[in-house]
């Protein structure tokens, strides 16, 4: 049963084009750097919005 499943999985994997190391490294680095930069910008922006909103709320 297990052997059959492994053989089936091997047959399915055959012919799949996996990205090479250069492609994986390039895309991953781009995705990680973009995520970190954008989330930092979003964090700074939302924190400043919250500070302003809290200040306005404290006036009432």
């Amino acid at each position: 049963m297990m052997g059959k499943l492994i053989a089936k999985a091997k047959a399915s994997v055959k012919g799949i084009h996996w990205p090479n190391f250069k492609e994986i490294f390039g895309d991953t680095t781009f995705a990680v750097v973009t995520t970190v930069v954008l989330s930092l910008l979003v964090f700074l922006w939302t924190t400043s919005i919250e500070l302003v909103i809290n200040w306005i709320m404290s006036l009432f």
Partner: protein
Amino acid sequence: MILFVLLIGYRIPLPGINEDYLKALGDSLTSSGIGGFFNSLTGSSFQRMSFFALSISPYITSSIVLQLLTIIVPKLQEISKDGSIGKQKMERLTFALGAIIAIIESLAMSIGFGRNGLFTNYTWYMVLFATTVWTVGACFLIWVGQTISNKLIGNGVSLILMFNILTTLPGDAINIFNSFAAESSWWAKILTIVVMAIVIYLVFAYVVVLNSAEKKIHITNSSKSGMRMREANDNVMPLKLNMGGVMPIIFSSSIMSFPVLIAQFVGVKEDSVASKILSCFSQGNWFNLDKPIYTVGVLLFVPLTFAFAYFYSMISFNAKDIADNLRKSGSIINGIRPGQPTADYLEKEAKSMLWIGTTMLLFISLLPTAISGLFGIRGLSFGGTTIIIIVGVILEMKNTIVAQTSSVAYKSLVKKKGR
């Protein structure tokens, strides 16, 4: 820039909200395990009950419903195949259905949570006010998303979804760091940061592989001139490993979190049998060593995801239509006869890819759940689903920018040569 302006609406609280109840609701959602999922999809606006409390969740629901209806209703099938005009009609239909869902969700939220103490004054006009504000907020976000899609780079709704997720990331990173090294020495803290960075990088790389892997099917395209075959071109038709993207996980997570959310509305007693069964449905309770019995929910989640992946690939990948189109354009898959044999071959290939793709998808989806369960990190929204969405949107954005830059460079080159 537009997206940054939108974030203001995520933070402005609705007037007349009971802060104590809001805090209790946030804690209850976090402990039930669905808080993280909703927070990441709505950019924490759901937990804050701000102007954009629903965010674009009605649009996601309406897209799913319309896609499912397309299989059953022949008229919708006709519209979806009608080129760019059909696409515009489908967009308008998605918007209209999204607006209806937004009204229903806002009304259910304002009555359900309002009755339990969300508003300082629970009156009919407060319910009407909250319903109107949340519905208008959701419709506005959907409109912005569709406008971005039509005029700028990438898919607008996906971009909004990505920004929603990004707002919860810094909090998650701090959460993970505190769970492992809050009271450790400086060296242990630095080591934790380095290990965290490596693990996150590897997870991103895994998602990149999952997104990029494909099976290339070789097609020979021949055109006839009179009685003689003039030329034969070899082309490649790519079949993506993960055809359904993140949709199967979103489907199964939504189905499993639905009873938990309903229980929040009606209020189920903590020690009851229903509460224990519902705890198995919450991803936040899985892989918890103190209560291992709740991990039984994974046994439902895995087959449900496979079923949805199969179902979704059957909707989005119509082997018979592709085989017909290939035959009409005079193309054949090498070694396969046109017509029904081609359709059978494509279906067989798609099914074999589905098993591997969904297994890989399940692994990345359950990995963060397992880590947060085993190490006791609560309220984590940084799941496999969110990483798949982030990587997918960023890579799509990158490809669009590269394509547009190449197009501009080509046009300027043609212009120069013309002079």
